[in-house]
């Protein structure tokens, strides 16, 4: 599903975030990505969604080399991915409901099924009662959950979560992990970056560690 071959990422200022990294994630797999702060976790996840571009090496999704995608095809790749951003990237001038609605509008769902889907997604993260709230009126954890709702509402094939439990207490973190697991069980490929050791303790899923720009299992 997701393949990295000798991928290096060197930022314009010369910093090398990834150095000849190799990676292979099968369809329907659930994988954790860990490493110290600044190890390059976010960089790796952004490369998958073509938000960043590799300096060298090949990244393939579903066998398609994403560097060869035409600019017009990139939006359709991104729609296959539900991305939970480390910095949330919520729209602060719209209600929680409208934030979650956005991916559906972008994909062109018809309006009848949209509201039901949005409420279902909000319900899954426990924010149904806050659908009319603006993001400023939400706590850090609530914003994080809103971001999760937005990433899952259009039922993507791949779910990428960058530190999804960073601001959550143990209870909610466990609920969110259960949610990710249930997605994985219906066939969604899930990739989660975290440095929360408690999430990794009793998991039977694969854990990848980033160190000096390289990946180790």
């Amino acid at each position, binding site marked *: 599903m997701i393949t990295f071959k000798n991928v290096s990422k060197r930022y314009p200022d010369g910093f090398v975030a990834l150095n000849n990294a190799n990676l292979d994630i099968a369809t329907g797999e659930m994988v954790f990505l860990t490493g110290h702060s600044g190890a390059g976790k976010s960089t790796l996840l952004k490369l998958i*969604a073509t*938000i*960043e571009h590799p300096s060298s090496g090949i990244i393939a999704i579903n066998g398609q080399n994403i560097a060869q995608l035409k600019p*017009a095809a990139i*939006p*359709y*790749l*991104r*729609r296959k*991915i539900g*991305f939970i*951003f480390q910095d949330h*990237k*919520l*729209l*602060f*001038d719209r209600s929680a409901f409208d934030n979650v609605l*956005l*991916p559906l*509008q*972008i*994909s*062109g*769902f*018809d*309006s009848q099924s949209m509201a039901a889907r949005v409420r279902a997604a909000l319900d899954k993260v426990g924010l149904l009662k806050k659908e009319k709230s603006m993001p400023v009126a939400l706590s850090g954890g609530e914003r994080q959950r809103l971001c999760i709702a*937005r990433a899952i509402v259009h039922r993507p094939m791949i779910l990428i979560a960058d530190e999804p439990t960073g601001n959550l207490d143990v209870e909610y973190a466990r609920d969110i992990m259960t949610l990710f697991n249930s997605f994985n069980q219906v066939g969604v490929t899930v990739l989660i970056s975290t440095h929360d050791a408690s999430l990794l303790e009793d998991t039977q899923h694969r854990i990848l560690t980033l160190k000096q720009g390289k990946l180790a299992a």
Partner: protein
Amino acid sequence: MMRAWLSQHGYVLLFTLKQLIAKPVTNICSILVMGIALSLPVGAYTLIENLHALSGQVADMPQMSLFVKTDANSQDIANIKQKLESDEQIIDFQYIPKETALQQLQQSSGLANIAHHLGHNPLPDAFVVHTQKNTAQVLEQLRTDMQNWPEIEFVQFDSDWIERLNAILDLSRAVMFMLSILLSIAIIAIMFNTIRLQILTKRDEIEISKLIGATDSFIQRPFLYFGTIQGLAGGFVAWSIMIISVNTMNHKLIDLTQLYNSDFQLHYLSLADSISLLFFSAWLGWLGARISVASHLWQIEAK
């Protein structure tokens, strides 16, 4: 699929209208600016069309006035009538004896007792003659011929001014055309800037939408709708200004035309021209937005 497409566009339309209502003062101001700018060429066009129609009416039937010598008797008048009837170039004519002319003058000018004050009727007998449509040369020849009849004092070509008017109208058209081009460019520039500011304030929204898979056309759509709707509204303002102006002028004209015993009224812009105006202004708004979007959106690349 179709329904999804429709609901998407319906949503954007609704969203755009909400946006227009959300900032009423700003939006009304820019719509007014566009409307007033457009109303100048539209007004000029309406006026030119009216004058053109008027000159056409007259030119379709060239008209001359024959003034009979003041010492002419009834035999002379009969002679003239006979000569006019036998001339193939003359379609019809109307005899206006000096008594009738005096009456008309008194009625229309309100100077009731001209004759009384003067002691006699100063006006000559006259004929108003309609000739066939022909070249200026032929008509001029006819005029000179009639001028040479012994009973005739003077023949006046009533449509001399038509040619001058037409020359002026041609010049006015050229000026109006330039004016239209310049003001259209101004409208495009206004829209370009309006959309540029909107894009700046919506940077986050655009960035995030791109991140989660929005196509360029999805992102452009609200801006293009906004430009088109504002352009349309500007066109409507220009149209309303034209209607109100023509209306006001017609009210004034009633006083004036009554004096000249005519029922001349200015025409409004025709239906076809009105529709063209609305389409054109909507297109200008769209174009300004399109250019602005094309030159600003690509700069926003999400990270």
